[in-house]
């Protein structure tokens, strides 16, 4: 099934079209979510939520952008929303007993050892992941989409609903801020 046909079938509620969407895009959604939340369990939850949302709202998809761009957009929003909730949960941690939520998704504590990172880069990548948690959300999203998903600045602009210049500026600021955070980290390590 090609993309226009897939969209039509999805809008008609065809279960096999939905299965095809999941099979083709699960890696895209999961890896984007993993890059942002940096926790495999949370990324898995978000992946499920993204596909459910896509299934429920595909009727409103007008086909103005690529299906993958639309999925990226849903994933980024879901992942950022998830992080906000996790931060809120951390603030009201004493209520965990009542809500039944665990600390698994704590965005400040977990360090992701991404399974796809080359062995010789593992240590530096973990440090970069820690640094990524300390820069603003939009910079982190742009950096993650570019570095981990290999998206071009033009595609990132479309996913984030920004101009190309805005994305270039975001990437430059992301690099500057990451350098600052990493510098502090390595200087502390040297002393």
């Amino acid at each position, binding site marked *: 099934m090609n993309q226009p046909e897939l969209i039509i079938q999805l809008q008609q509620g065809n279960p096999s079209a939905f299965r095809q969407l999941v099979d083709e895009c699960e890696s895209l959604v*999961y890896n984007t979510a993993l890059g942002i939340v940096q926790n495999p369990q949370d990324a*898995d939850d978000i992946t*499920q939520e993204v*596909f*459910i949302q896509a299934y429920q709202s595909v009727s409103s998809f007008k086909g103005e952008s690529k299906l993958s761009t639309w999925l990226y957009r849903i994933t980024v929003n879901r992942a950022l929303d998830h992080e906000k909730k996790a931060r809120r949960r951390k603030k009201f941690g004493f209520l965990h007993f009542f809500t039944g939520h665990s600390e698994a998704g704590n965005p400040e504590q977990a360090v992701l050892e*991404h*399974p796809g990172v080359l062995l010789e*880069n593992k240590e530096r990548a973990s440090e*970069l992941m820690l640094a990524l948690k300390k820069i603003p959300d939009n910079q982190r999203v742009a950096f993650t989409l570019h570095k981990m998903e290999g998206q071009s600045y033009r595609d990132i602009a479309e996913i984030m609903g920004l101009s190309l210049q805005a994305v270039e500026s975001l990437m430059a600021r992301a690099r500057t801020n990451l350098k600052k955070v990493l510098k502090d980290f390595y200087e502390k390590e040297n002393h």
Partner: protein
Amino acid sequence: MDNREQTEKKIEAALNSLDGMHKAEPAPFLMTRIQARMNRASESGWERTIRLVTHPAYVIIGLCLIVGVNALVVLNNDSATPESAYAAEQTTVNPDEMVSKVATLYDIENTDPQ
């Protein structure tokens, strides 16, 4: 190589550490899990209410509320006791008085009731 140069090198290495990375694989049976979640989301209002009400946290909160209300009632009763005891004392008939009254009414030896 001095510390500064070493730090710069580490920073560059960290920034480029994601180059050439492979994609991570999601856990298997994603489709099955999505379907299960969709089924859960479509359960009826009653099912959802029952699941919520039987959630251990809410059960504990409910029990605490019941115990708390009971404790309040008991404490209120305790603090009201002295007054009620006094009132009870006031309304209790003195047994001697009762006896004298009975004697006054039915004592046949008492010929002069006044």
